[in-house]
């Protein structure tokens, strides 16, 4: 597969992956998601070793985060202790693993964005030398996702309050329902994300200059396919996770 995908398609894919990373909360599921994301990176012919090299400085941070989660999360069985001082509990280990896996997924997904050979992505994103932009992008993604999740939860609540027993709707209808809900949810989330970014800019936050582009982007069949399949799959997985389906 030679991937010359539109950056917008990649963005959709990244958003889907990160949504799942936030929704899932067990190491097993997160690990599978990470594996799938890395598989995707390989499909995109990304040189993982080089990426690792770029990311080395951040691994320290991850390690620190992991240890902090492990040590400061109480509960579970004690695994390691010095005298009576507990160093490591099962719950801590679980939390630490979860957090680190989540971050790794978000980072791996963000790497996808760097594969765009059109220059429509902020050049700083492509050039790892400018970590500030990367951090910015990732932080925006992370900020965006809770909005998306809230939006999803709101809609699911609202649908049920109108008397629809989501769990009992037959499969065919359920797919149709989710298909119809998908657009409004995404639109609502986008409107809110726009408000967020306007609010950020209004308070003087500026990551890069506003630009207009002469070149038009065109979506290919691959793009359309992926833009449909990814969110569909994500919604399905989320539904499965929340036991709605």
């Amino acid at each position: 597969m030679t991937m010359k995908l539109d950056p917008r398609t990649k963005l959709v894919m990244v958003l889907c992956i990160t949504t799942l990373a936030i929704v899932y909360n067990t190491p097993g599921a997160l690990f599978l998601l990470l594996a799938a994301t890395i598989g995707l990176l390989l499909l995109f012919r990304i040189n993982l070793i080089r990426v690792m090299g770029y990311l080395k400085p951040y691994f320290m941070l991850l390690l620190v985060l992991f240890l902090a989660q492990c040590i400061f999360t109480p509960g579970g069985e004690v695994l390691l202790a010095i005298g009576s001082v507990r160093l490591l509990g099962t719950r801590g280990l679980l939390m630490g693993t979860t957090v680190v896996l989540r971050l790794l997924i978000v980072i791996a997904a963000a790497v996808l964005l760097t594969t765009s050979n059109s220059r429509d992505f902020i050049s700083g994103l492509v050039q790892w030398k400018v970590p500030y932009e990367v951090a910015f992008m990732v932080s925006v993604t992370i900020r965006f996702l809770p909005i998306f999740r809230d939006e999803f939860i709101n809609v699911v609540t609202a649908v049920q309050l109108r008397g629809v027993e989501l769990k009992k709707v037959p499969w065919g209808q359920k797919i149709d329902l989710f298909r119809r809900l998908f657009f409004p949810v995404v639109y609502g989330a986008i409107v809110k994300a726009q408000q967020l970014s306007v609010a950020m800019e209004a308070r003087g936050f500026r990551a890069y200059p506003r630009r207009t582009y002469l070149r038009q982007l065109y979506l290919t069949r691959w793009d359309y396919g992926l833009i449909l399949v990814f969110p569909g799959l994500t919604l399905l997985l989320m539904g499965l996770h929340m036991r709605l389906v």
Partner: protein
Amino acid sequence: MTGRDTYIREEAQYIPARSSIGEAGAAFLELSQVGFSYSGKRPAVLSGINLTFAREGITAIMGPNGCGKTTLTKLMVGILSPASGEISLEGRSLQEYTLAQVGRRIGYVFQNPNHQLFCSTVEEEIGFGLTHLGEEPAVVRERVDFYLDYFELSPYRDQFPLNLSYGEKQRLAIAAVLAGEPGFLILDEPTVGLDIYREKLLEEQLHKVAELGRGVVIVSHDNKFVSQVAERIITLENGQVKWDSSWRGNNDHEA
């Protein structure tokens, strides 16, 4: 009943209001000693709430920003679960109902219309509940037309709901819930964003709903609106019931 409530009740000579709020058997929705806080650490948003809602009558809940009105209504429909105390609907614990089962008994209009509109067109939004409850298409169509017309949304029939103006969204949210013709209605600040004329329309509609023997609870800051529609007024303050006009069994609107 806590000491505090009992004390007030004795002082105020408890007589049921005209909408026969009183007999335990007649209660539609009953909250006893309900407390709630968002995530364990935070201070309680609501505490020691004892309230009974009859199947009929219009009740208003008032109180300053952040006193917990929205939280209270969300507890009443089971979007949130109480941290302490018990809520019962038609004599059974609310916990035993699914959200959809509650939704078929109680229509809930969110404070923020953006949180409850999810269809691709205005028409679909109003018909959604009916369609999914298996109503005949002809019946759905008739009901949808009526509410489109009543709330003057007909010109927007095919519009995308989230693109409407705030007041239009609010009307649509109300219409969508009313179209399901639930036996009990809870509206969280329904008059916000409505102009005077539309507010009047809503008032009339609520009176009509009440005349059909249905119960209505509205959360509102709008003194005038409340005094026009409500026969019972509950005031919250700091997460507790400060005043309930049914304590005295009269209709004064001093809140």
